[in-house]
């Protein structure tokens, strides 16, 4: 009789044992499949948030701004930013271009001051990039040129401010002097990133320029591309365009090479790799443990087949095939279940709001797992291989035992 048929018969003969072993492999595989999807979702989400809120795919700034960023040097700006925006918008690879002005500020309200992070934006253009309209929880977006603002939900709560109420911003202007301006709150936004909800607010970029004494200047111009894989290539092209415009004082950097963004990305990637490794080890331990336990408890059976003339090599192959069949079927079911869990959650998302409180990393409060076919196929083969290989240790040991010894066991 062929070993494959014997292995199948053995699997069917003790259904409860096979089911136990298979269930462990299924659960472990399902867990890894889902964990990989969750991690892929988090990394994708991180990248998306960096592009939307922090740097775009390519960021244009004054070369000296980066060197002095901690001092918020508003005089080291992108002058005549509208010319730069229009020029970049004309490129076919470009999906959107947005000018932004970042500034640190003190918020004065009810005789108290609070720290805030202001962002002067072009609300119409930002509909394609930051998509503020989707985050708008109450009220409306500010009108350009008006002394209006939208507050992040956390900041609005901290200040105890609602729609129609006013606050005064105090900040250092372009000439390092002080500026103060009173703004009316027209809307409250809840950003996807928990960290942004604590101190951010948005004001029209032209009003910001007036407030900070910056005429037609922005601290940065962000470019979002149609194809995110061509970031480096376009950054070089953008640098060439800036040079041709006589704007050698401006640099175009891909987001992957921007200190904070790439640093966070590497940090996130490392953290997720560690989490994935832990998941893998846990799942592998379950698979190996179950497979070995099932074989060790069959010592008497091993003795019997050995006494009937089966060679040690055949015994090892028999158990390998058994483990392989169980592993393949269970891993397949596990992958299917993992996909089954991931698909609905990739639409509804997983709400991490409470666990993300106080976290300043650009990770959304609601994470959407992303199914990755390559990693899912890998998980299937990995689980099958682990289950099969795990059979070698106990079966080789069992095959070396004399039939009489094996028959005595249990």
């Amino acid at each position, binding site marked *: 009789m062929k070993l494959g048929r014997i292995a199948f018969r053995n699997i069917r003969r003790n259904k409860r044992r096979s089911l136990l072993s298979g269930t462990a492999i299924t659960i472990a595989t399902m867990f890894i499949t889902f964990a990989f999807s969750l991690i892929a979702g988090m990394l994708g989400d991180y990248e998306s948030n960096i592009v939307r809120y922090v740097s775009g795919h390519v960021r244009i700034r004054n070369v000296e701004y980066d060197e*002095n960023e901690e001092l918020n*040097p508003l*005089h080291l700006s992108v002058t005549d930013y509208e010319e730069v925006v229009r020029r970049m918008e004309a490129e076919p690879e470009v999906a959107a271009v947005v000018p932004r002005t970042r500034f640190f500020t*003190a918020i*004065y309200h009810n*005789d108290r*001051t609070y720290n805030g992070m202001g962002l002067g934006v072009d609300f119409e253009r930002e509909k394609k990039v930051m998509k503020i309209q989707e985050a708008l929880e109450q009220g409306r977006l500010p009108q350009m040129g008006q*002394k209006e603002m939208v507050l992040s939900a956390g900041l609005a709560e901290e200040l105890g401010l609602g729609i129609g109420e*006013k606050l*005064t911003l*105090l900040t*250092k*202007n*372009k*000439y*390092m*002097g*002080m*500026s*103060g*301006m*009173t703004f009316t709150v027209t809307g409250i936004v809840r950003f996807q990133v928990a960290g942004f909800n604590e101190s951010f607010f948005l004001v029209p970029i032209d009003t910001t320029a*007036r*407030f900070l*004494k910056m005429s037609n200047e922005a601290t940065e111009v962000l470019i979002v591309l149609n194809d995110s894989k061509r970031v480096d290539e376009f950054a070089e092209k953008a640098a060439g365009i800036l040079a041709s415009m006589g704007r050698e004082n401006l640099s175009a950097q891909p987001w992957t090479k921007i200190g904070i963004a790439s640093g966070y990305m590497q940090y996130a990637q490392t953290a997720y790799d560690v989490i994935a490794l832990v998941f893998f080890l846990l799942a592998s331990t379950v698979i190996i443990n179950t497979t070995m336990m099932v074989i060790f408890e069959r010592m008497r059976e091993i003795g019997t087949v050995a006494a009937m003339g089966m060679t040690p090599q055949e015994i090892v192959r028999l158990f390998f095939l058994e483990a392989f069949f169980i592993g393949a079927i269970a891993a397949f079911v596990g992958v299917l279940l993992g996909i089954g869990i991931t698909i609905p959650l990739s639409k509804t998302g997983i709400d991490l709001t409470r666990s993300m409180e106080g976290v300043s990393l650009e990770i959304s409060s609601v994470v959407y797992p992303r199914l990755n076919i390559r990693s899912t196929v890998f998980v299937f083969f990995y689980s099958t291989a682990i289950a099969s290989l795990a059979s070698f240790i106990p079966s080789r040991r069992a095959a070396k035992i004399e039939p009489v010894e094996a028959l005595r066991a249990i």
Partner: protein
Amino acid sequence: MRRIALLILSFGLAAALSAWAITAEEIVKAVENNEINEEERIEGSMIITDRFGSRVKTFVSYASGADKMLLEFTNPEEKGQKILRLEDEIYLYFPEAEEIIHLQGSALKESLMGSDFSYEDLTGEGDLLDLYKVTLLGEETIEGRKHYHLELKAKKRGLAYPKQEAWVDAEYWVMTRANAFSLSGRLLKELEIGDIRVVAGKYVPHYVIMRDAMKKNSSTEMRIEALDLNAELPPDIFSLEELTW
């Protein structure tokens, strides 16, 4: 306005003193009495230098006695901004703001217009002899002129400068140098005063340079362009109501 040194700093020690049998307390009392004018008006400028270069801010200031001072910026970038001091309270007015800002707590430690002075430096902190234990350390010659060397140690906690050293010109009876230190003895600020002129029978410094020792390559020079020690100021100029006009 009280002289620039007092206007800007609690360092303020400039005096006309009798030259004999001097104690540290007498020097300080005389300096304070001498610096306070009934009503004064000053036009001045501030040159702020840091790693990014130099910027000029111009201002007009008004003062009445030791407790009231109004500073209004006249340079184009900050035109119309006002700082009102009433005793130890500081209020800011910005033309684009709909409310008056009452500076309190840590906000007082912020830089004044990006200069080496802080808002805290504008506050009088009261009578120096009530706040500091003053010791006359001796006599020194600075740039060929005889000076008295004073040490001021804070009597209570919470003062901007727990320890100060000051040098008073023994002929002009004007403080020409001062250093301020933290509680641990770290140098915080250095002040030099010069261009002393006689105005209405008083020796008045027309030039001040301040260096914040915590900032690299940073200094702020202040110059008095015009000074009127007998100015007739409008009534209520030092009120919150008038601040917005």
